[in-house]
């Protein structure tokens, strides 16, 4: 099937290592941020979100960090597994924008067994 992200930045990690995927967002008025995972031929799948009044939020094996000063978002995946291989997108939005998501360009994560 068609691949998503043929020319995206790629992060290659060893199975079991931790992964960090970074994203620079553009709008200082954004107050809600989301990370999505997209596998080939599938729609984006919600991973974790964070509001602008927080700087860290943890989920199962994932942590999102928000630095509003430099408009930077990161996704940390602990003990990366082969099933984590996908393209990861950050997205930003705000109430003023009608909650329409503005997506970053994406990063391809490849997990080596």
């Amino acid at each position, binding site marked *: 099937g*068609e*691949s*998503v*992200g*043929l*020319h*995206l930045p790629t992060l290659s990690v060893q199975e079991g290592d931790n992964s960090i995927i970074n994203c620079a967002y553009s709008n200082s008025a954004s*107050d*809600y941020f*989301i990370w*999505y995972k997209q596998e080939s*031929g*599938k*729609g*984006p*799948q*919600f991973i974790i*979100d964070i*509001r602008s009044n927080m700087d860290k939020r943890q989920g199962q094996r994932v942590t999102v960090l928000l630095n509003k000063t430099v408009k930077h978002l990161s996704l940390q995946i602990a003990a990366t597994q082969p099933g984590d291989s996908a393209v990861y*997108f950050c*997205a930003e*939005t705000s*109430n003023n924008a*009608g*909650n*329409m*998501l*503005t*997506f*970053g*360009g*994406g990063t391809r994560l490849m997990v080596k067994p």
Partner: protein
Amino acid sequence: GAGVSQSPSNKVTEKGKDVELRCDPISGHTALYWYRQRLGQGLEFLIYFQGNSAPDKSGLPSDRFSAERTGESVSTLTIQRTQQEDSAVYLCASSLGGPPPQHFGDGTRLSIL
């Protein structure tokens, strides 16, 4: 199913033809969004429906693109006189409205010959 459903999953058509893409959102979701994803790129916002409010059409790339939604259910995205640059995956998402995350369907892969 419980997720966002899109049809058809694939559509191949000749340049100049009209196409209609369908989205069935998650039941109870008042907000519905259409996005376009070109190969190797992130998602571009097209149009947003929220309840009975007038849709936000600010992302539609030309007047060949239009969309309708019946109440808080099915939406159709229509592209008239298709051009080769319309080739992309068209993704639909729905949400409860406000900042809760948008849930995506798997998209319609549109190919214009």
